[in-house]
């Protein structure tokens, strides 16, 4: 509650405005929680507590349920994430073709572990079960771009593209 700047125009947060748009799109729709969370994460990059609270309020559901859903699905994140999200496939095909070495190389290079984000908020590293591009194993995705036939050297070169 603002108690100091009564004369100023209310500041409209563009992200909050977008979120309001999401709410109106899904208003009254059954089972809207997950798409709303996806849209909210799209807007904010992650899911801050305040956003979860407003989602719970809007959808008239207990916050604990929202939190339960958020922590259940790998897609949702409660902490800020890097501009580039690297998802390293750890599927069977990739595993037998050395995916764990790719993961190791990335961890070493970025000095973060699986699931972590670099301090400059540039990269987030995570492993995924399968990207469905088994023909190109081992595979990783950087944001929406898929990179295949990885070796340690290739991976380091790819990282450079995102400087």
């Amino acid at each position, binding site marked *: 509650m603002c108690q100091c700047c009564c004369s100023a125009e209310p500041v409209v947060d563009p992200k909050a405005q977008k979120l309001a748009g999401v709410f109106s799109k899904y208003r009254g729709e059954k089972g809207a929680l997950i798409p709303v969370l996806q849209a909210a994460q799209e807007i904010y990059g992650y899911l801050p507590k305040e956003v979860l609270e407003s989602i719970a309020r809007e959808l008239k559901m207990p916050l604990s349920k929202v939190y339960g859903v958020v922590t259940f699905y790998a897609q949702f994140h409660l902490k800020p994430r890097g501009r580039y999200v690297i998802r390293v*496939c750890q599927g*069977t095909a990739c595993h037998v073709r050395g995916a764990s070495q790719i993961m190791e190389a990335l961890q070493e290079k970025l000095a973060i572990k699986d699931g972590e984000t670099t301090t400059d908020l540039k990269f987030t590293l995570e492993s*995924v079960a399968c990207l469905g591009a*088994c023909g190109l194993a081992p595979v990783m995705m950087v944001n929406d771009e898929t990179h295949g036939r990885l070796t340690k050297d290739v991976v380091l070169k790819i990282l450079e593209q995102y400087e």
Partner: protein
Amino acid sequence: MRRVLICAGTGCVASGSRKVTARLKEELDRQGLAEQIKVVNTGCHGFCEQGPIVIVEPGDIFYCQVQEKDVPDIVAKTLANGEVVDRLLFKEPGSGQAVTRYHDIHFYAKQQRLVLKNCGHIDPENLDEYLAVEGYEGLKRALTTMTREQVIEEVKLSGLRGRGGAGFPTGVKWEFAYNSPGDKKYVVCNADEGDPGAFMDRSILEGDPHAVIEGMLICGYAIGADEGYIYVRAEYPLATHRLRVAIAQATDRGYLGENILGTGFNFKLKIKEGAGAFVCGEETALLTSIEGNRGMPRVRPPFPAVKGIWEKPTNINNVETFANVPVILRKGGSWYASIGTERSKGTKVFALTGKIINTGLAEVPMGITMREIIFDIGGGIQKGKEFKAVQIGGPSGGCLPKELLDLPVDYDSLTQAGAMMGSGGLVVMDETTCMVDVARFFLNFTQKESCGKCTPCREGTKRMLEILTRITEGKGEMTDIERLERLAKVVKNTALCGLGQTAPNPILTTLRYFRDEYEAHINEASCPARVCKELITYWIHQEKCNGCTRCARSCASSAIAGAAKQPHSIDPAKCSKCGVCIEKCRQGAIVKLTGKERQLVKH
């Protein structure tokens, strides 16, 4: 008119097919050929390893691994003069023979493509192309000439069984939903393809989305549903995009929405994007997830056919199952039933991955042997290594040894052998694959993906994984095997859902067929496949090493010492066992020792 089909599936896009398309269009414009030659972006050919794939019609010329720089040649030679660019042709593994025509390639020649027929051959973002290949004819036939009961009979007659897991007869499933009382029913397409190593559903959605929609429509008509959901996993953005386009086009043209084809049948279709949980591939968990909850499975019965989404009768099938439906309605159930074996009808798409030469999707008639798939279609094992096992059915499946290579591939034989059809992932393993490690890999997966609801799965997979990890680290005891077996049986017997009930399968089959490997790990501290890091030591064969220093220079841990042109050696204390040195060594001087061999190093 000549057509150039450029694959725009995820695999080929990753290999640069978008650039090829752009370059080709530019080139055609420049040469003034844009009017005569049509460039079509298609879905996946299922041969992703060879991507980007470009096909020139007519002539069925198959170019693979095409890069931007190859475009001028294709235009100048093939498109302008009808000449073939030899260097872009596919070379058969083994013989090395170049093949020009798509259908002459062994990989494709042995397949029977019903479901994948359109994939790679039509533009999935253009409804007209689908219509041109008899698209929506099955729906038309169902809606205009058949009663709902007749449609169900036709599907029952076809013998189609669910392509996603346990292989329940599709027609019977539809009949349950049809018979379930209720004025509101749903059709759900399970496109949450989560089995690592399986990507047929993705390819179908990316390459032929209308076939899935048509299958769902036919189902909707049959069971009396007017609403459907396609639950697509979050990792498939391209498939989701294509589906959206397809739904919009189908709605525009009256194949979806109100009064479809003027018959009074209404059906609306929505996409639900998953949020990253393997367990949501389990049908009750998927429904729970659609409802906006934690994707935790529910107890069955009641089955979804009785109480599905929001407690309404719901029929749920997977992508491949629905994609089979249009052709059944078009050509008839008995025609379909003529393919396959007595109890497993039609074709099945397999995803061939692992240490196989031709990685990709193969659609084959049921009953074909594993050997035919792996060696005739798949081209055998990479790098001339020995076949060891094939893992079939994903994390729920099992590992079959070479003794079972002649097993006919059908639902029942696989189940009997301890594996399962699952979604059809085939991961081929060679002598360098450790079976204990593979079991551990799968348990790690199921353990991570367990929803946590029931005790046996939540706690049991954790403990099984711990035991397996102990064994791969050389800390196992013989009683661990006993413990593992006991736990595996109880988890299989008592877990709530399919994920938990099948989670022990990789353990049970590897114990059944490769028990000696477990024993070697425990009794001899030996990993016969030389995979388990704690049980191997890297060692340089002094006689073979020529002192080129390549290995030392590539070692990130500075574990390799040695003067130039002198034999090098590895300090085991520093070695991280990353394996880079072996890749670099041209002399084959670096080897992995295990078990008793490791004593060599100590002396």
